[in-house]
C-alpha cells in the first residue's frame, strides 16, 4: 500500500503546477462572470454522476480485458497451432479495430435484455459499452502479456522443466510472476487509454460524463456555459489520467533493466 501510494503522491506533486494553473484560470473566469460559475456549480453533481460511469466502465472493461488477455497471450505462445491460431487472429483483428466501431457493434449485436433461468435480466447499454471496450482491451493485454513472457529468459523454462514442472505449471509459477513487473507499466498505459475511450459510450446513449455535459449544454443553452462545461470534461479526464501516466513513467524508470 505505502509502496504504491508513494509514487502516486509524487505524480500528484508533478501535476501540481497544472492544477494550480487550471484553478487559477477558473477563479479568474468566475470574477468575470459570477452567473457562469453558479450554473457550473449547479451542474457539477450531475457531471460527477456521469464521470462515475466512465470510471465504472473503464474499470470493468480493463478487468475483463485483463482476464481474457492473459489467457489469449498465453495461447499466442502455444506450440499447438489449433490453440495459437485463434488467439493470434483475435488479437490482430481487434487490435486494429476502432473502439467506436466495436462499441456500436456490441450495442446493436446484443439484445436489451437476456433470459436467464426463465427470468428477464436487463442488459443495459453501459454494460454493452463495457464489452465493446473489453474486446480490444483483451487484444492489447494479450500483446503485453506475450511480450512480457518472451522477455523472460528461456533458461528459466529449462530450469523449471528440469525440476519436473509441466509447461502450464512453469507458466503459472515461474514465468507469469516474473512478467508482472515487466507488464505493469504498459498495462497502466492501456488503462489510461481505455478510460479516455469511455467517452465514446456517449454516442450510444450511455449516461457518462460527455453525455452529461451535452445534457447540461442543451439545458442551459448559453455559449459561454457550453465552453466551460466541455473544458470541465477535459479537466476531469486529465486529472484522472495524468497521475496514472506519471506513475507509469515512474514505474518504467524503476523497472528498467539495469
Amino acid at each position, binding site marked *: 500500500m505505502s509502496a504504491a501510494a508513494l509514487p502516486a503522491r509524487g505524480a500528484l506533486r508533478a501535476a501540481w503546477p497544472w492544477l494550480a494553473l487550471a484553478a487559477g484560470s477558473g477563479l479568474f473566469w468566475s470574477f468575470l462572470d459570477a452567473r457562469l460559475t453558479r450554473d457550473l456549480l449547479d451542474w457539477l453533481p450531475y457531471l460527477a454522476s456521469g464521470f462515475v460511469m466512465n470510471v465504472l466502465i473503464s474499470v470493468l472493461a480493463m478487468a475483463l480485458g485483463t482476464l481474457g488477455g492473459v489467457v489469449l497471450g498465453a495461447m499466442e505462445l502455444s506450440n499447438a497451432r489449433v490453440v495459437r491460431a485463434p488467439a493470434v487472429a483475435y488479437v490482430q483483428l481487434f487490435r486494429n479495430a476502432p473502439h467506436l466501431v466495436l462499441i456500436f457493434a456490441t450495442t446493436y449485436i446484443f439484445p436489451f435484455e437476456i433470459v436467464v433461468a426463465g427470468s428477464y435480466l436487463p442488459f443495459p447499454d453501459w454494460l454493452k459499452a463495457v464489452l465493446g471496450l473489453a474486446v480490444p482491451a483483451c487484444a492489447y493485454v494479450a500483446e503485453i502479456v506475450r511480450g512480457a513472457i518472451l522477455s523472460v529468459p528461456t533458461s528459466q523454462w529449462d*530450469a523449471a522443466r528440469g525440476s519436473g514442472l*509441466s509447461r502450464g505449471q512453469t507458466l503459472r509459477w515461474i514465468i507469469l510472476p516474473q512478467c508482472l513487473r515487466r507488464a505493469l507499466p504498459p498495462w497502466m498505459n492501456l488503462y489510461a487509454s481505455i478510460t479516455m475511450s469511455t467517452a465514446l459510450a456517449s454516442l450510444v446513449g450511455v449516461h457518462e460524463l460527455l453525455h452529461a455535459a451535452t445534457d447540461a449544454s442543451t439545458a442551459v443553452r448559453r455559449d459561454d456555459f457550453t465552453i466551460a462545461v466541455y473544458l470541465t470534461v477535459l479537466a476531469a479526464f486529465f486529472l484522472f489520467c495524468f497521475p496514472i501516466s506519471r506513475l507509469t513513467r515512474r514505474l518504467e524508470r524503476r523497472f528498467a533493466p539495469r
Partner: protein
Amino acid sequence: MAQDHTPRPILVELRDVHLSFGAAEVLKGIDLTVAKGDAVSIIGPSGSGKSTILRCINGLAQPHTGRITVAGTRVDTLRTEAERIALRKRVGIVFQQYNLFPHLTVLENITLAPTRILKVPRAEAEALARDLLARVRLADKVSAYPGELSGGQQQRVAIARALAMRPELVLFDEVTSALDPEMVGEVLAVIRELVRDGLTSILVTHEMRFAEEISDTIAFTENGRIVAQAPPAELFYRSGNPRIRQFIGGFQGYRDAVQHREGI
C-alpha cells in the same frame, strides 16, 4: 570416488545417439555408460556437444536416433509430457548460469518442486531444504533472494535445489564456467563431497584437475562423438590418442594454477 571395484548396476546408457539442430549435426553417435554411484566427467573442446548430451539424458532435447536408458526408462521413446516429467523427477540438473527463480526466496526455490510436484508436506520439504542449505554452507541465506547472492552462492543454491528432489542422478552442466575464479573452489568443494557420499553424477566440465580427482571415468568428446571413455589416470596419462594428449596438454599450465589456488 568409489573405493571398491565390485561391478555396479548400470544407471545410464547411451548407444549411438544422434541429434541435429536444423542442418547442424551436433551429436554423431554418442556412446556413454554410467554405473550407479559413479561420477563421470565429460570433457572436450567447446561446441563438441557436451551440454546437448546432458539435455538428452533428462529429456530437454530429443535425439533423432539412438537409445538412451536411464534407470530402466527408455528416454528416447518418451512421447508425452507426463512421461518426461516422471523422468525429470528422478534426474536433477544444475546449469552453467544457475537459473534460480529470481522472484522466489532461496527456501522457495528449493521447496517449490518437492512440494508441488512430489507433494511432499511443506514442513518436511522445508526441513530437507534447510539440511541441504547447511550442506552447501548457506544455512544463513534461507530467506535471501537470488539477486542478493554471489554467483558461487547462487550455484550452491541451485545444487541444493536439484538435490531436494532426491534424484537418482544429477547432471552438472559446466557449473563453474560462469563463476569468478575465487568462487569456483567453493562450488567444486560441494560437488566433491556429494560424489564422495555416493551421488551418481555426470559432469560437463573444463576443470581438468577436478575431473581427474573426483571422476570414476572420463569421457572425451570431439566433434559430436565420444572418442574415449576411461578412468582418469588412463585417459590423462596413457592415452594413445594424439588429440586427447594435445587437449589435456593445453590445460597443463592452467592445471598447475588451479592446483595452487585450491590447494587440492
